[in-house]
């Protein structure tokens, strides 16, 4: 057994194994699709598939936001309540102040950006651990949503077409047979952009580098704090988009909603093979993870499994997904 490690030989293993988990998640998704379509003829109906996609859109967008943060080796527990707060801000701008639609959308996204910036600042500059910092932000935002809205839902009845942002279908206008909701298109757009940022921009490079070895990045003379804040701010803006999506879908900003969404988002990220210890992860994996969660919920509902049990199944899948990853790594 010769030990002449040629530079090109070993890393291929690493890349394959990175893809391996995505493959595993993808086969899991396919297996679920096969099982459910065999179990129920209703499952593969176009309407049902579109419903699954629609149901994935909000969680998917949040999960993309969390993916960015988790790759840095951090965590963001505030994404759910931040989404709600952004929706409430949109409601205030559009319904209470009666301002035009673009201002409402911009307001929501900028609110997300600002909140992410604050989280990032607390983590990078004040050195509060991400778990604690974003736990605090989660509660702050939850409270602010209730305060700003006066604990009442804000309806978007004065903004005609607001619900079309998520529920309408641009594709359907051209291809009537395939009315893919806009919410799904927005999810894919967000995913594509996030993937692009991760793979092709300096911000993306530092995102991976931070999760891989933060001290090494610091010693390389990189302004670690600034980039870390930027990642949280970007994740925050994506939460703003999720806020618009959910508000549009419900045609209202529901201030009591939001808590719990962060856990679904983290679940999607983990099932999709992103390492919670940072340095590794993909947006594609996260999308697959989010789809697995919605397919499970949808399929089990079609099979008339009680909602309580759906949660149990999702929990089991999370543990199995991570365990599969650990088994693989042990074998290496």
């Amino acid at each position, binding site marked *: *057994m*010769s*030990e002449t*490690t040629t*530079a*090109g030989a*070993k*890393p291929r*293993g*690493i*890349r394959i194994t990175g893809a391996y988990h995505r493959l595993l998640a993808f086969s899991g998704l396919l297996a679920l699709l096969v099982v459910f379509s065999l179990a129920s003829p209703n499952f593969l109906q176009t309407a049902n598939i579109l419903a699954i996609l629609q149901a994935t859109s909000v969680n998917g967008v949040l999960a993309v936001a969390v993916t960015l943060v988790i790759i840095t080796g951090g965590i963001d527990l505030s994404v759910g309540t931040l989404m709600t707060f952004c929706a409430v801000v949109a409601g205030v701008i559009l319904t209470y102040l009666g301002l035009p639609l673009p201002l409402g959308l911009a307001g929501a996204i900028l609110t997300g950006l600002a909140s992410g910036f604050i989280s990032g600042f607390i983590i990078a500059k004040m050195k509060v651990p991400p778990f604690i910092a974003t736990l605090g932000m989660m509660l702050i935002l939850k409270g602010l949503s209730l305060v700003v809205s006066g604990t009442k839902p804000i309806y978007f009845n004065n903004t005609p077409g607001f619900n079309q942002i998520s529920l309408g279908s641009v594709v359907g206008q051209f291809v009537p047979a395939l009315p893919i909701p806009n919410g799904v298109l927005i999810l894919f757009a967000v995913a594509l952009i996030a993937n692009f940022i991760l793979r*092709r*921009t*300096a911000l*993306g*490079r*530092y995102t*991976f*580098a931070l*999760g*891989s*070895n933060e*001290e*090494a*990045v*610091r*010693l*390389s*003379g*990189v*302004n670690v704090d600034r980039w870390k804040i930027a990642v949280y701010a970007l994740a925050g803006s994506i939460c703003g988009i999720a806020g618009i999506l959910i508000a549009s879908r419900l045609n209202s900003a529901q201030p009591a909603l939001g808590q719990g969404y962060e856990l679904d988002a983290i679940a999607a990220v983990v099932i999709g093979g992103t390492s919670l210890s940072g*340095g*590794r992860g993909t947006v594609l994996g996260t999308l697959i993870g989010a789809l697995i969660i919605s397919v499970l919920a949808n399929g089990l509902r079609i099979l008339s499994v009680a909602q309580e049990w759906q949660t149990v199944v999702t929990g089991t899948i999370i543990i199995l997904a991570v365990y599969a990853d650990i088994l693989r790594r042990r074998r290496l």
Partner: protein
Amino acid sequence: MLGTGGDLHVYTDGCRDFPHAAGRRLTALVEMVDIDKQFPGVRALHKARFDLEAGEVHALMGENGAGKSTLMKILAGIYRRDGGDIRFDGKPVDLGSPREALNLGIAIIHQELALMRDLTAAQNIFIGREPRAGWLLDEKKLNDDCEAIFKSMHLAMDPRVNAGSLTIAKQQMVEIAKALSFRSRVLIMDEPTAALNDAEINELFAIINRLKAEGVGIVYISHKMDEIKRIADRVTIMRDSEYVGTVPAATTPIETIISMMVGRTLSNEQAAIPDTSAAPVALEVRGLSRGKEIRDVSFTVRKGEILGFAGLMGAGRTEVARAIFGADPIEAGEILIDGRPVAVKTPRDAVSAGIGYLSEDRKHFGLATGLDVRNNIVLPSLERFTGPAGVLREGAMEVAAKGLIQQLAIKTPSDTQEARLLSGGNQQKVVIAKWLLRDCPILIFDEPTRGIDVGAKSEIYKLLNRLAGEGRAVIMISSELPEILRLSHRIAVMCEGRLTGILPGGASQEEIMHLATLRPSAVAPDPTTKAA
């Protein structure tokens, strides 16, 4: 350009022959004067000084803890000095961050390689300075630039390779490439050859000579005398946080340098090696294997014997120790204690079988730094101090802890002092105390003196000798050959997961280094491995 000595004279144009010749340069490239640095509880540097000229290799030597790394980290902008002046090119500079140092052209290659394992070689090298095309990263230029640097180093490596998958030697090459990419004028290397074999060392020296010829000033921190003689122009020696002196490398005898390092002429401190060949075997390991890390390792340790484990970084010594202790799984192999096979699957099994392990990294594995000294000492023996209903008997714990504090002369204000506030040497003693309380007949010490000062070291040495004298079997892993030579009754040497030989105590450094670099291809069945 792979020769080492040859290029040197050609390019340096005789400078080497007159290292102090006036007028060669009006000012030194770097001058550090009266540098002070204080860490909580430790004086790391006291009026330390150092200077470096362009185109020279200046070795910095001293025992562990002498302050070499701290001084260089100050030069690299990682630590801030508490006092003193630094001049670069004759101008006073204030190096507040690694970035400032890098911008001036001062780069450091760390002993613990600081790479981002999930990034490629090229991405590591250009981190923070990625070539861009507008908003986007220019991955092609990145890889091309990296390729160009590798070429200039005569290095055949794929820029797209993941850093985490490279051997330590290659990772080091990536670090050097990174330093070169900054067009560094000062390159600090902290024990660069610690994990390299001979061929890799030759490659490294060829690169150093080329850099030197280009006028780069190189600070070379090392313990290895032969390397200093081969590569350095001048040697600065430090001891106990202070500057001792600077001498020309070529003409100063090794003995002089060593006596400057230790502060006295080194006598043969190796105590007489007791004959333990008749003592019963306490621990026998047969065919221990796991993947590439541990390959078919077999050895015995007798009661009252200190078996030293020597080898380069990454040779698999710690892995063997952890496997024996049940901290990591094994794929094959047997562990026998007092001649009986025991199943050690977890550290708990190991402890009940009588094995104590003092890990390499005290802070992370050996010591609960947040707990006080007393609780650290009694931690593995807690069952003994548990009364009915699970209530701990604090009184008995206090008596036991105080007894050991006295016995080992642990310097602590009280047994309720937090362990993290103790000095390194005393923390190490606390870890030893906890295994003494367990009364383990087999003790494994992994780098027992890493990061502790000279005085504490000799106390630890005495303690190890005493433990063996009491009839315990002691395994000691150390990267410092003098330590291995001074303490070991026999010396096991590992290379790349294999036990390449077991030498009798008092073997020469050369014999050990030969076995430590014995690559698998060269491993023949070695008769010495059967010595016991």
